[in-house]
């Protein structure tokens, strides 16, 4: 008897199941968006000439007695007669969609915000100051901004959405290495250029063709940090403390390797979670080990917590060097307050830079975001990636991602941090040379190295907490 009613109910259930599935498919079809582009043809002739010449002096190794000067004239002359067939008369060229994929919410939101603003600054320069991209008939850049929510899965699906639904020609992103790795993999799969603002070595280490990186990533900045402690400051012992996500792990491995190569003794090394509310067990061990300096690979909140707890537990060292990338300098200063004094950070740029391109950057920023505000490294990093991308689009004279990609490989320009030229992995050859060293002095960030960019002298050893 039980069996009879069982099979009857099974019949109903399966029928219902099929019905539900059909409904689901119908619902899905209902959400299906179809976009059609009507072909347009008119005839337009335009001529554009732009010549850019810059030189730069570059020091390749710190503390070395010989200074190699590289004078690099970069001349870009663009003279083009463009005959386009467009049927609709007096229609402005289609805007060029560029995907901007950064964390707008989540733990990395403060850093993501800086990046987006940096890109918006350059877009402003291109659209308003230049009047659009000259070689593409004054086509303006349209930024399609997406939020990774500091989550790799979301980063990947957003990248996919930007490519397949928004039809962007390239993507700039994604700040956090853990989010950038999957997002750039999506871009590679679809054949869309991805100019990364994230530090992990693996981003350009996967043999991908479409991923590029202009700013100095983890490898050179970490090496610089170690070189600074050993060669420049002349110390012999160091503690390496890094947060345990992709970024921190790579900094950790790299610092230990470089320290070993230079003969710098690592008296304590540890990974910690950037969400940990209490770093005292680790800091107490550091206190016991008594290193000359600390090299740290952190994000913002843990960096602030670290200096704060160092003061609380009276952990004194001669220098604290943060490997930049995870720490937005201005926000760090704001949150850490007096504890930030004498802290050193590696970076690619500082607002005391005298380069003309840097001044242009700062002025555009102020116009967009207010005269009392200043861009920081996060914004600079993203600004630079935008510069590189737009330069490539200009030379490509096309919105075909594959053509843009080819143009990217031939990049040769000098930006706010220095020269940019990509190797076969998509990495900037001048990463090490473009790294700057900043320090907090008198409540402000100043550039102390390299010598040509320095506006102040490095102060070390720093006074103990009790003496401040």
């Amino acid at each position, binding site marked *: 008897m039980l069996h009879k009613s069982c099979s009857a109910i099974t019949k109903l259930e399966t029928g219902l199941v*099929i019905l539900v599935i059909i409904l689901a498919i119908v619902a899905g079809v209902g959400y299906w968006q179809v976009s059609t582009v009507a072909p347009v043809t008119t005839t337009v002739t335009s001529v554009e000439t732009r010549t850019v010449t810059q030189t730069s002096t570059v020091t390749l190794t710190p503390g070395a007695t010989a200074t190699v000067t590289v004078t690099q004239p970069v001349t870009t002359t663009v003279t083009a007669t463009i005959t386009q067939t467009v049927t609709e008369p007096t229609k402005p060229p289609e805007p060029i969609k560029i995907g901007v994929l950064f964390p707008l919410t989540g733990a990395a939101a403060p850093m993501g915000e800086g990046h987006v603003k940096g890109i918006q600054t350059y877009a402003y320069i291109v659209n308003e100051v230049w009047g659009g991209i000259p070689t593409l008939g004054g086509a303006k850049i349209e930024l399609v901004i997406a939020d990774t929510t500091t989550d790799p899965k979301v980063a990947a699906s957003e990248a996919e959405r930007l490519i397949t639904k928004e039809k962007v020609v390239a993507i700039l992103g994604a700040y956090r290495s*853990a989010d950038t790795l999957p997002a750039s993999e999506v871009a590679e799969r679809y054949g869309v250029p991805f100019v990364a603002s994230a530090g992990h070595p693996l981003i350009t280490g996967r043999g991908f063709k479409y991923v590029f990186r202009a700013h100095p990533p983890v490898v050179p900045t970490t090496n610089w940090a170690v070189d600074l402690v050993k060669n420049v400051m002349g110390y012999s012992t160091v503690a390496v403390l890094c947060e345990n996500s992709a970024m921190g792990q790579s900094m950790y491995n790299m610092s230990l390797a470089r320290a070993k190569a230079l003969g710098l003794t690592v008296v304590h090394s540890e990974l910690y979670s950037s969400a940990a509310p209490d770093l005292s067990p680790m800091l107490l061990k550091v206190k016991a080990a008594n290193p000359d300096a600390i090299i740290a690979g952190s994000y913002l909140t843990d960096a602030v917590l670290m200096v704060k707890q160092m003061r609380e537990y009276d952990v004194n060292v001669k220098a604290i060097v943060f490997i930049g990338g995870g720490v937005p300098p201005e926000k760090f200063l704001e949150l850490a307050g007096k504890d930030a004094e004498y802290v050193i950070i590696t970076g690619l740029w500082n607002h005391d830079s005298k380069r003309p391109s840097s001044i242009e950057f700062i002025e555009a920023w102020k116009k967009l975001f207010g005269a009392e505000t200043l861009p920081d490294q996060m914004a600079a990093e993203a600004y630079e990636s935008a510069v590189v991308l737009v330069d490539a689009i200009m030379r490509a004279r096309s919105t075909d991602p594959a053509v843009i990609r080819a143009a990217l490989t031939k990049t040769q320009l000098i930006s706010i941090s220095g020269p940019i030229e990509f190797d076969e992995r998509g990495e900037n050859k001048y990463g090490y040379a473009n790294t700057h060293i900043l320090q907090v002095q008198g409540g402000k960030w100043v550039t102390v190295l390299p010598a040509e960019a320095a506006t102040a002298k490095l102060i070390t050893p720093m006074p103990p907490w009790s003496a401040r």
Partner: protein
Amino acid sequence: MVKKVTKFLLPLVGLAALCVVPLFITDLTIIHILIYTFFFAYFAAAWNIVGSYAGQPSLGHAIFFGIGGYTSSILFINYGISPWVGMFVGAILAALAALALGFPTFRVRGPFFAFITLAFTLLISLLFVYFHDYTGGATGLPVPLKGDAPHLFQFNSKLPYYYIILAFFCVITYVTYRLEKSKFGYYLLAIREDEDAAASVGVHVFKYKLMAAALSGFFTAFLGTFYTQYTRFIDPHEAFGLWRTFQPMLISVLGGPGLWGPLVGAAIITPINESIIMFFGGRYATVGMMLYGLIVMLIILFMPSGIVGVLRRVYTHFRS
């Protein structure tokens, strides 16, 4: 004879319909939604073995999912072993993990299995981050791109994944069906209804609970491998996160117990979920998640037998 045919006819017709769907629907978004529907349905069905049939809800099925995904990925990345093989290795490890978790908890009266599984999703996440040299740590592991490589469980197109998850679902449904009708299934039913009475008639409660847990973990691990191969990426958050561990329970509670509950639950939730994500971007996913939590709370309060239960009552009402 006629009854037997009708019992199997409708599911088979449904299956045939699903198989030919890709001939008519070419929008990948729809295929993606269908893949996730069967993904969720499978997950809930596997969870049901221990959560529903044995009456031991687990709050940590992400553990088995993650073990499956990580095992096949680590074996693939380090030793070149095909994920098809790694999948089974992962499943065995997951079954062992289920036994390990069940051993201290099934001996004791009370929802300890739920507690220990919840605690262990946090613990295993911690361990996977700590031993980063072996597991990729918080970064996770990207699956090496091999393009179209069926023997390596990788395809450029979404369609093969669709057929695979469909096949997986058929397998788990069949397993559940046989379970329901078997002696094992009846023992589990007895244990769920009244443990003491079952024990008094000689049912080895402890042993059968463990078997259910192991079976459930075993099948869940397959899903972990599938997901990793589909998204080509795994990290502790994806594998062991709260959403992952909550998913099967949500679908199961919504759909209701029984053979088709998981599919009903999945078929309702998935299109809504994916549409929210596609439409509004990842940012508003939390709104959907909030709703799911609310749905579970409301269903357990007012409709504890889920949608299927409601439908059954409606059906019997109309019959009489």
